[in-house]
């Protein structure tokens, strides 16, 4: 953990706050404490919200929960739907699923990954990567590369639209759909629906490969910058299948340390409380999970694309695995930890999800009609875990004899990444802010690091009009020296 989490003498330092002012809860804020010589002493990313999620769920009938949890997040409702439904399969006594039901759920999940990754890369990440923000030489190189990808924006929107179409077809609606229910699925895929998706999937695979090509070319222009920006040497965690390959939908938990060494492997995620501990800190509403046996100081970890493709032994689709090997070669056998590398990893995952979706669309089981599992004994407690687009997502429930939820614990991807995000921002601040005048451009570096993780700022809410960032400069006594609004 960085020494920049808590300053030794904060009262003598001036404070810079980067505060997105939204009309609802769920905003993040970065505070930076600097001394009179612009040396950084303390950096913290505060994400408020996440309060009330569990209370929103508790007291509801268990069969209602998979639908209810979709209201938690407007960006990844499918992730919450699937994690909750996996838990409720067990509560209701419906395991294992039928082959068709599991494959439809996987296809739904891959559609969610494609649309979420496309949205993030083409709308949020590519402007940072393409515009550059470091050197004039770098900017000139980047302009040349951007010219070679003129259709980037259109491809991004169409890729996102394709992922949404998978969700619409399987869940029944563009929003407020269900699809997955405890025990299986409530709607079969028709031949016409399958053919419609199959007709477009090869184009999505091609665009995913082009996106990877773009990121790789950009990385080659300034490798040290792209590899080191926002670097935080984190442990890494993700789900893997029995063979050690990445599995977005189901598997055992694996964690590696910052050098790639094994911490734990193939852990049954229903026992997550035996390996992970959630701490609270007085300055943030969001919890700080860590690997219990390593303690809070050393046990914090990273989840999501950058962790997943380095925790696993392989990706099961050939094109994505080949791209993963190219990525890994950059590290010369050691894991990579730069925040901007999330974007490269994210595009490799988008390709992987698209290839997996194509394989499922070619699988005859996907058109099966046997959607519900046989029912076995009911349980009172269960855990559902998936790899959501932003990382590992835990849903844990207890249900009483009246079928009402009595306990709910969610660890969302952003919570898993809480310490890692803080460390990346500290790395950026330490490298780019120390000893220099604070400018809008420098503060943008902080935003770039935040964007790399794309934290879920809770969610299912939005802001009409602008979502400005407000930068406040205060002296050691807390008096406002200046304020800068952005966006």
């Amino acid at each position, binding site marked *: 953990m960085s020494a920049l989490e808590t300053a030794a003498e904060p009262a003598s330092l001036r404070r810079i706050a980067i505060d*997105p002012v*939204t*009309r*609802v*809860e*769920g905003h*993040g804020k970065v505070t930076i404490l600097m001394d009179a010589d612009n040396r950084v002493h303390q950096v913290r990313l505060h994400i408020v919200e996440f309060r*009330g*999620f569990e*209370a*929103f769920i508790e007291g509801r009938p268990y069969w209602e929960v998979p639908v*209810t949890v979709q*209201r*938690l997040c*407007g*960006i990844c*409702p499918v992730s919450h739907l699937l994690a909750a439904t996996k838990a409720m399969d067990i509560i209701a006594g419906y395991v294992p699923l039928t082959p068709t039901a599991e494959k439809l759920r996987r296809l739904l999940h891959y559609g969610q990954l494609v649309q*979420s990754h496309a*949205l*993030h890369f*083409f*709308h*949020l990440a590519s*402007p*940072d990567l393409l515009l550059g923000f470091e050197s004039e030489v770098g900017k000139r190189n980047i302009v040349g590369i951007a010219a070679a990808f003129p259709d980037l*924006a*259109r491809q*991004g*929107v169409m890729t*996102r*639209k394709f992922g*949404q179409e998978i969700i619409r077809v399987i869940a029944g609606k*563009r*929003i407020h759909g269900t699809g997955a229910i405890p025990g299986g699925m409530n709607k079969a895929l028709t031949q016409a629906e399958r053919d419609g998706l199959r007709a477009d999937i090869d184009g999505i695979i091609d665009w995913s490969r082009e996106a990877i090509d773009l990121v790789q070319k950009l990385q080659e222009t300034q490798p040290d910058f792209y590899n080191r920006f926002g670097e935080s040497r984190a442990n890494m965690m993700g789900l893997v299948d029995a063979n050690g390959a990445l599995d977005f939908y189901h598997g055992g938990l694996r964690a590696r340390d910052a050098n790639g060494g094994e911490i734990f492997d193939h852990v049954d995620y229903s026992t997550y409380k035996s390996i992970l501990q959630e701490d609270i800190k007085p300055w943030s509403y969001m919890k700080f999970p860590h690997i219990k046996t390593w303690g809070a100081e050393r046990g914090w970890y990273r989840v999501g694309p950058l962790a997943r493709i380095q925790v696993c032994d392989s990706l099961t689709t050939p094109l994505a695995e080949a791209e993963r090997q190219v990525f890994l070669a950059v590290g010369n056998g050691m894991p990579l930890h730069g925040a901007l590398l999330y974007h490269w990893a994210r595009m490799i995952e988008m390709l992987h999800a698209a290839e997996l979706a194509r394989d499922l669309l070619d699988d005859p089981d996907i058109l099966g009609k046997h959607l519900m599992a046989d029912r076995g004994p009911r349980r009172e407690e269960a855990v559902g875990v998936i790899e959501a687009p932003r990382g590992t997502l835990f849903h844990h429930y207890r249900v009483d004899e009246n079928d009402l939820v009595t306990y709910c614990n969610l660890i969302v991807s952003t919570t898993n990444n809480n310490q890692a995000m803080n460390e990346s921002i500290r790395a950026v601040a330490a490298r780019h802010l120390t000893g220099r005048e604070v400018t809008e451009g420098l503060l943008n570096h902080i*935003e770039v690091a*935040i*964007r790399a993780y*794309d*934290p*879920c*700022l809770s*969610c*299912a*809410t*939005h*802001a*009409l*009009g*602008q*979502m400005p*960032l407000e930068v406040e400069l205060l002296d050691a006594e807390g008096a406002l020296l200046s304020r800068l609004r952005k*966006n």
Partner: protein
Amino acid sequence: MKLVVLGWGNESRGDDGLGPLLLRRFEAAAWPDVTAIEDYQLQIEHALDLEGADAALFIDAGRDTPAPFAFREIAPRFGATHTTHALAPESVLGVYVQIKGVAPPPAFALCVRGESFGLGEGLSSEGAIRLEQAWDFCRELMAERFFAVWRGRAV
């Protein structure tokens, strides 16, 4: 005039549901040449929904909006925020320009002031009143379906 109406928000967050509730009234009214689109949030693919439209109307709730609502014309805006979890209607218009290479159709935003946005809450009493006021205003707009007239009513 072919009109696309986008209403968004989360009905499980109190007055955040004002957008979807108004949108459903457009659906129920079944005016000709009106396409109603509901979502949790605006996203980049909503730019595609504007193709072929003569005008667009974005409907949402807002916390700092003047009560009972504000109606204004909006223009494309470019540039990233720090998260994918919010996209402004102006940014949707910006995406339209990026992918189509031409100006988007005239677009307007109707923002209804909300008071309470807590998870699990229903509409506030003020929100319920403003829903009716905003709907009366929408019916007036739809009686004059010429965006030049709408421009005159925008602030």
